[in-house]
């Protein structure tokens, strides 16, 4: 009692652990958290594609768009898409692994 009052960090430690456990179980139960992450990532990739498209359009229509910034935007969009595809492949692999589980 005295120790925990002298070191306030000690008293909060179990609370923090309980908090972490609660958040993980909540994340495991509700499917919206993983979905939300996935949707957020997809939206970001989509944004990159959109900005790349805008820049290429600006370049082709002669709006004074810099060539290099358009090329860099295209590369960024391409790399983001590549990363998204790899993550998706991993997720699908995990799903097929689990669906092949036998008891």
């Amino acid at each position, binding site marked *: 009692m005295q120790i925990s009052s002298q070191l306030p960090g000690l008293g909060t430690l179990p609370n923090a652990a309980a908090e972490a456990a609660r958040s993980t179980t909540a994340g495991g139960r509700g499917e919206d958290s993983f979905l939300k992450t996935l949707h957020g990532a997809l939206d970001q990739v989509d944004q990159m594609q959109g900005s790349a498209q805008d820049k290429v359009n600006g370049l082709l229509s002669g709006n004074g768009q*810099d060539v290099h*910034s358009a090329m860099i935007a295209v*590369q960024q969009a391409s790399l983001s898409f590549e990363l998204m595809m790899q993550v998706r*492949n991993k997720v699908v692999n995990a799903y097929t692994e689990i669906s092949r589980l036998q008891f």
Partner: protein
Amino acid sequence: MNLFGVMQVSGSALGAERIRSEVTAANLANAESTHTEEGGPYRRKQVVFASQNAPSFQNTLAGAGESHGSQPRGVVVRDVVSDPAPPIMRYEPSHPDANEAGYVAYPNINPVAEMTDLLSAVRSYQMNVAAVSASKQMIAQSIDILR
């Protein structure tokens, strides 16, 4: 510093070098211009580069706790200044811009120096393109880890 930090830094350098080559090309094009809107012959232009987001006290303080220390910064063209060198006077009495004594003020532009400047700008551009490709390869190789 995000995934594309190198690309943003190199991209700013690409833009700056492009402006530098533009200014050099303008110097070459106006090497014989004796008449300008502000009067007198064309003055040789020079770009002044500056590091982006000069570190303020807050930024330094915020970065002090991080392991990186300072954030990578790009480059910006801070200013395009005119060369104060006096113009070259040539005796051409028939020229419409000649003064009472018959002398015409020509821009003090050395084509050799300008061409060297242009080459330097092009080489710097190449360097920064190489940096962008290297960063692209690094990211692609990191993605290959997932495979």
